[in-house]
């Protein structure tokens, strides 16, 4: 199994979620994060104190999926989260050994 973690622009969440649902993904977990990258931030001035804000609000969407689903999931995310402008984000795919559903104790693919 794999964990697909996508850093996306916040306003793309709903579209991404819908696309994943269509693929049969039944669950995902979202975290508010701040991203630093090529996308430029902005400068804020408060009473003469200047702050360069280089961290921009992003969402991290994590989806645990069976390995064979990874490509479809990645494709779906790319398809929906892309605006073509710098800062669209990244997807990281990493291995998971086990998944356990707390409610039932089911494991691995049954737990998804």
């Amino acid at each position, binding site marked *: 199994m794999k964990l697909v973690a996508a850093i996306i622009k916040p306003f793309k969440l709903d579209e991404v979620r819908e696309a994943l649902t269509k693929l049969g993904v039944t669950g995902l977990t979202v975290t508010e994060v701040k991203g630093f990258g090529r996308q430029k931030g902005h400068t*804020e*001035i*408060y*009473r*003469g*104190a200047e*702050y360069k804000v280089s961290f921009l609000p992003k969402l991290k969407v994590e989806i645990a999926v069976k390995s064979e689903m990874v490509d479809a999931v990645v494709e779906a995310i790319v398809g929906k989260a892309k605006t073509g402008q710098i800062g669209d984000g990244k997807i990281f795919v990493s291995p998971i050994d086990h998944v356990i559903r707390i409610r039932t104790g089911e494991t691995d693919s049954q737990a998804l």
Partner: protein
Amino acid sequence: MQDNTPSAIGRRWLDPSRSFGLISGLGLATGLLLAGPALAQDADPAPIVDKGDVAWMMVSTILVLLMTIPGLALFYGGLVRSKNILSVLTQVTAIVCVASLMWVGWGYSMALTDGGALNAYVGGFSQIGLANMTADSLAATFSDGIFIPEYVFVIFQMTFAAITAALIVGGFAERIKFGPLMVFTILWLTFVYAPICHMVWASGGYLFELGALDFAGGTVVHINSGIAALVGAVMLGRRVGHGSEQMAPHSLPFTMIGAALLWVGWFGFNAGSNLEATAGAGLAMINTFVAPAAAGLAWQVAEWVTRGKPSLLGLASGVVAGLVVVTPMAGIAGPMGAIVCGAIGGVICYIAVMYLKNGLGYDDSLDVFGIHCVGGIFGAIATGVVVDANLGGIGLDDYNMAAQVTTQATGVIITLLWSGLGSLVLFTVVSIVFGLRVPEDHEREGLDITAHGERAYNM
């Protein structure tokens, strides 16, 4: 109807016998019954207390409290980091408490009663604990024969002492120890505020007799607190991380609420200083509306031109700057004079906050100096100009602009010196005895947890 022609008001300002004269309560309690005929022979009519004035002065008092808590507390609290907001709120609120007890205890007496031999500089001790005051004690207004209950006058003035002391904390927010600050507050109100209040507003006070005009407290409140805050900021030193770490305001909506309540409450401050519900108070209200409006917009335009964007914080800061500027001239200038002074003052304070502070490198956390002291100085001096009847002001007898401006400048300098040096001495004493600054790791973790054991937000 009050004799409200310009020259009459002018005269009243310079006539010591008018200013805050008090009719002693005890004497009056019995005296009043006899007063009618007795005074008639003196051709001096029985004192008039109009319930409209009493209502207005009670409202004004409440408004000045509203300015302070939650107004000033939020204005300041929104500007600090979220780990320090409770410390600011606590400081401001506790100062209100301490100041009110001190005022009833000895502050009012030292500020606004007759000081005997020292009367040019400070009041006396006749009203310690309001001991000799009753419901029949009266305080004079600026109109002949019109009085308000002394109780009401005491509490109106009490709120001025409270907000002045509270303003100071902005200079060294996010790094001062709570207990020592309370000690400083009591000392400062006693040795700095009371004398300056007396000199400016009490009959026989040095600046009052000199003819310095300060309608609602430009010197007494704003220059006074502003210079004390600067002294404190310099003595405590800059915050850890100042200049390198993010110290953006944690909640500008709170700052905006605070600024709005300052504005709302300032009508009590300025128009209440008229002591009567008359057209003069109405004029002070108009000026207290348009001067900050002009200053707020001027600050924003200055930002727009120099930085590309007009900010809310700029607007709010400008409004407060304009309120400071108009304070000494509120009932004295005409609306056009107030607008012009507001606009100029807004730009001057913008420059002080943007360039002077950065240039000199002091860390006046919340710009008490840049707004209250700088704005206060400009307003105090400009008052000498806009009082001119030709410029729409109420005019003065034997008015000479240069002379009046000199008198105003004298008031400014004396206040700067007295408060600057006095604050230096008092901060030094408190620093030696108790220490002023929290340890660095407390500053890092935030004063809310380390000094007060609480967190502001648990979402």
